[in-house]
């Protein structure tokens, strides 16, 4: 199956989440992968190492994750759709250059198959412990986009979506999956390539002399020239003006740039955010969940309904930017909210902030076993 010179393997497959992610990247047009082996994301690198040369793409195994993300930013600036994949320890090493990608508005995709931390933690065990790091891991103020798949099919679909969002907003986009989803095998339907929506970065429409690499359009996103296209532009991690010139002491330039980098995501949250709602219309108790925890939550909501509990599920596909407005609306109607997470309570803080006075209860899980549906049903009864 992996022996194929096609980028899009149209058909029905039985794949692991990691493999589906790699296939999604290829289908999205990814032609550069820079990575470093790490459990439980290694299978993505292995698949890319095999598949990319088959379709004329580039795989390189760098000396560490710092180098991986640096190479990916470089490849993106040289015009390729580029990706890296890692897990917690590698994600930590990437943080400084994630800031560089934000500052220089490099479209790229970072996959984090979350395992148990802190530190080396439990390499082969699941976790959802990098959720806050994804949002706040690099220094400074910024916005990124992070999606949380909950099935192998979504590992394929959302990887494509990550590339499309990265290209639309010129921002690093993260696919935050957990070890269970990464290593789980399920059916994947890969559609014909002409049925897959592909978005490419917008290019400058002005001649090189008039091109300002960081001058935004109305959507706050600047068109992107790439190296070698004759625009001869400069990009820097320093605060810069629209021409890319460093502005290291100017208050107006610092304010303007940082506000725009945040603003291009914040003003577009409605088009970015994706959720899945299950029997929310009349729900008294709402489970807000993402990733593997949302699978148990779905089962729990179905079970609860058969037992006469008015339960609903808000499954977050987009976790950053956080769907604050939506959670606030749901909280107005619900009597209680339950947040099952495989950490000590991370996204629950965002839910609490949005839910205001509605009681929010965290169901925390650490280690090998994810939440069981019965545990979530019990929590509903307690509320």
């Amino acid at each position: 199956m992996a022996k194929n010179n096609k980028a899009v393997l149209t058909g029905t497959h039985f794949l692991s989440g990691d493999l589906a992610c790699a296939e999604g990247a290829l289908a999205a047009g990814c032609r550069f992968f820079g990575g470093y082996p790490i459990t439980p994301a290694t299978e993505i690198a292995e698949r890319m190492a095999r598949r990319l040369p088959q379709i004329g793409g580039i795989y390189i195994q760098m000396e560490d994750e710092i180098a991986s993300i640096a190479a990916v930013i470089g490849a993106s600036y040289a015009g390729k759709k580029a990706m890296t994949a890692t897990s917690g320890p590698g994600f930590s090493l990437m943080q400084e250059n994630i800031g560089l990608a934000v500052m220089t508005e490099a479209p790229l995709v970072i996959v984090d198959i979350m395992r148990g931390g802190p530190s080396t933690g439990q390499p082969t065990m699941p976790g959802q412990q990098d959720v806050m790091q994804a949002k706040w891991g690099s220094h400074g103020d910024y916005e990124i986009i992070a999606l949380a798949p909950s099935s192998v099919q979504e590992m394929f679909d959302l990887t494509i979506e990550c590339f499309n969002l990265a290209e639309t907003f010129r921002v690093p986009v993260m696919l935050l999956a957990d070890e269970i989803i990464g290593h789980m095998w399920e059916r994947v339907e890969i559609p014909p390539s002409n049925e897959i929506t592909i978005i490419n970065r917008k290019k400058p429409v002005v001649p090189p002399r008039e091109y300002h690499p960081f001058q935004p359009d109305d959507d706050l996103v600047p068109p992107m020239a790439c190296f070698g296209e004759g625009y001869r532009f400069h990009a820097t991690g320093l605060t810069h003006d629209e021409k890319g010139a460093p502005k290291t002491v100017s208050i107006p330039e610092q304010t303007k740039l940082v506000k725009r980098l945040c603003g291009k995501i914040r003003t577009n949250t409605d088009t970015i955010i994706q959720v899945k709602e299950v029997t929310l219309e009349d729900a008294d108790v709402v489970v807000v969940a993402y990733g593997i925890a949302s699978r148990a939550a779905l089962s729990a909501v179905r079970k609860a309904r058969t037992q006469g509990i008015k339960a609903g599920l808000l499954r977050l596909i987009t976790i950053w930017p956080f769907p604050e407005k939506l959670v606030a609306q749901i909280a107005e109607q619900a009597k209680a909210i339950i947040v099952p997470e495989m950490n000590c309570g991370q996204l629950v803080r965002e839910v609490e902030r949005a839910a205001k006075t509605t009681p929010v209860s965290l169901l925390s899980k650490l280690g090998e076993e994810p939440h069981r549906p019965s545990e979530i049903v019990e929590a509903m009864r307690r509320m």
Partner: protein
Amino acid sequence: MNNKDLMLQHPLAKYLRQERMPHIWCEGCGNGILLNSFLEALDELQLDLDNIVVISGIGCIGRAAGYVNVDSFHTTHGRAIPFATGVKLANPQLKVVVISGDGDLFAIGGNHFIHAARRNVDIKVICANNFNYGMTGGQYGPTTPLEAWTTTTPYGNIEHPFNLVHLAAASGAVYAARWTTLQVRRLKASIKKALQKEGFSLIEVISPCPEIYDRYNKLGTAVEVMKWFKLVSEVHKAYDPAKAVITKNRIIIGEFVDIEKPSYGRLLREMTAQVKEDLEGENTK
């Protein structure tokens, strides 16, 4: 005559982003000589400027990328080489040059340097070696000589410095040369050679740091440092890089490595072509 008029008359003006001038470097700093040599090399080779990318890390010389009128990128500290690796592999048509400092390339970025050299990625590294971290005010770094005074070696440096050309040779570079900012013609010739050669190249440029390192270590004015360069520089051909240590009394300069070896990009393209050919063969069976 004001600065702007001077600039307009400069024969290399078209290679610079003139609106970024004046540069941030101190009077007497070697960075200007290094940059000038690079621009002259570009001029003499008449390379298509649209196909050149200059990438730098952090530090005084790191600003060079912003001054050159080609595609350029100023990365995070130490990461110019892996960024350049991504650029070169993604678009092999580009000539990719890293211009950065000794601290950036060999302390925080040291691991990237040895691995890019090992892979023989086709990038040209021009290193301004001023023996210290100048931008942060003169701390010791991976090239600071033993006993030297810096703000973080107030009792004298007790760490042994790297011999950069030896490191490059041992790591797999196909070209390694060292000059001081005094030997401008030889420096330019080296840059031209590296630009025309396939594979990973290092050109080390020993450079005065008159306001910081040279002052702390009582080496005198920039002119006096240049005189010192003249006094102690020994040009050799194919000298053993392992023995090319730098001391107060002797700086061995010259070309230390000049060999041929297929670059990473070439091997990658050959492998990819073979994989595709094999697959097509299998599919038509």
